[in-house]
């Protein structure tokens, strides 16, 4: 057998403060965006299911952290990003994007407001350099300093319905006061951290920003505390199927410089109503007016063959779009995919009487049902990005 997908590394990948911990746990390590990251520890399906039913522990130290500080920080971010970060309350976080002047997405970000004049911007590992450069250029006229703090943070996520109960045993902070998309400084297992109630799995959970030298001990203490609750370490493979089920975009798949937030169905992150200019405003306003020429949709495969990234979507046997992400869904037990399709095809396929979409799976058309995103929504609350 031959794997269709191949990868290669030019430079040796960077290690996180937890790489040796992963090796000791027997993880399969992979080069991801220039970092040596755990792909899985055992069965990625078991890791996925643990996050849905109990909890999973992730090393996300490859993510980029950028500090934006100074009296002009809020105004600078309002100009540099699509969101209105000046309206964000200290202690709250927001999902937002940084766009090129033509409206294309350079990265999707979570911005934490830590204080009146202090923000933490979390970028995708592959885009950290692009975001640092763009933010530095765009904020040059503002009284704000941008610094790449990626090496100053380990980032550990605990995700799943038991996450809060597991952390509660390790901190005096009342976790019920930490709302979804909020953060606060906290003592966790005796270490000073920034504790954020954010994630990328569709479950309740926390992301923990810690000093690199505290990471291994925190990992061990959380693992020990969570073992009786069903907590297991989870790798990037599980993270990908979890976010796909939750309908969350992955940069490089659903989001690229050729895609605007409107194409991705994320027009809500573009605050055209905010005062002042921002990078990409004119192009994005025009796109909002015209409507997107493609639409991000959910597909459920009707056979067992899985639609994968880059496969053609067919309507009436003719290409009408492209799959951006696809996988066998561990929770639903069927193949699921996200795809960009022409709006007219999506409209027609929404009415089953008019026919059905298909995906060209290596030369054979496999029927696929159009569904609303997300594929999975947790029962007890709003697992969505605010």
């Amino acid at each position, binding site marked *: *057998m*031959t*794997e269709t997908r191949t990868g290669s590394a030019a430079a040796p990948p960077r290690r996180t403060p937890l790489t040796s911990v992963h090796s000791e746990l027997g993880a399969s390590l992979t080069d991801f965006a220039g970092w040596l990251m755990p792909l899985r520890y055992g069965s990625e*399906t078991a890791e996925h299911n643990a996050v849905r039913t109990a909890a999973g522990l992730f090393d996300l130290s490859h993510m980029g952290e950028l500090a934006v500080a100074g009296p002009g920080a809020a105004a600078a971010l309002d100009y540099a990003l699509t969101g209105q970060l000046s309206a964000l309350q200290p202690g709250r976080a927001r999902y937002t994007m940084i766009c090129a002047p033509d409206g294309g997405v350079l990265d999707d970000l979570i911005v934490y407001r830590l204080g009146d004049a202090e923000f933490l911007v979390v970028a995708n590992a592959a885009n950290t350099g692009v975001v640092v450069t763009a933010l530095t250029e765009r904020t040059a006229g503002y009284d704000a300093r941008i610094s790449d703090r990626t090496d100053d943070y380990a980032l550990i996520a605990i995700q799943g319905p038991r996450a809060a109960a597991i952390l509660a045993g390790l901190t005096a902070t009342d976790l019920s006061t930490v709302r979804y998309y909020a953060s606060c400084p906290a003592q966790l297992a005796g270490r000073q951290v920034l504790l954020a109630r954010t994630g990328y799995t569709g479950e309740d959970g926390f992301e923990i920003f810690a000093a690199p030298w505290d990471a291994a001990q925190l990992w061990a203490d959380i693992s020990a505390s969570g073992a009786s609750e069903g907590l297991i370490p989870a790798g990037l*493979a599980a993270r990908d199927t979890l976010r796909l089920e939750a309908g969350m975009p992955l940069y490089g798949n659903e989001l690229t410089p050729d895609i605007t937030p409107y194409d991705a169905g994320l027009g809500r992150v573009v605050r055209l109503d905010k005062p002042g200019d921002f990078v990409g405003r004119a192009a994005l306003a025009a796109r909002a007016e015209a409507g997107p020429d493609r639409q991000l949709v959910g597909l459920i495969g009707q056979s*067992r*063959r899985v639609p994968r990234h880059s496969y053609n979507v067919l309507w009436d046997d003719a290409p009408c779009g492209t799959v951006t992400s696809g996988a*066998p869904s561990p929770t639903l037990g069927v193949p699921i995919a996200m795809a960009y399709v022409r709006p007219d095809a999506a409209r027609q396929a929404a009415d089953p009487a008019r026919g059905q979409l298909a995906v060209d799976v*290596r030369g054979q058309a496999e029927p696929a049902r159009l569904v609303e995103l997300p594929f999975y929504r947790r029962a007890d609350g709003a697992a969505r990005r605010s």
Partner: protein
Amino acid sequence: MSVPGELYYTPEHEWVAINGSTASVGITDYAQRALGDVVFVSAPTASSRVASGEPCGEIESTKSVSDLYSPVDGEVTEVNPEIEDDPGLVNSDPYGAGWLFKVQLDDASGELPPGLLSAAEYTALTKEESDS
């Protein structure tokens, strides 16, 4: 990683056990580890013809899909009926309960089909792939 000495291997990570004029085929431990959790196997059907080095099916895992190649020439006599309901057998027992199909060999002379690797040669190949 397990590479049983009595089996033969393809460079595409199938194993084959030859017993007289019949052969059993599966994928290796190295392959199942690289693939991750197998969720669906499309194996050749009984009575179909397979040819050495030719694709004869596919294996879907969480992360990817891979072609399955036949190590030998012949006619498929049996397909593992357990795999349909429990494709995870390919992960949990790749050389045993995770076998995929059996072939009646065209050449029953006992000659080894060309292009197959010994356990030692296959081990060396996987070392190269892991290091590259």
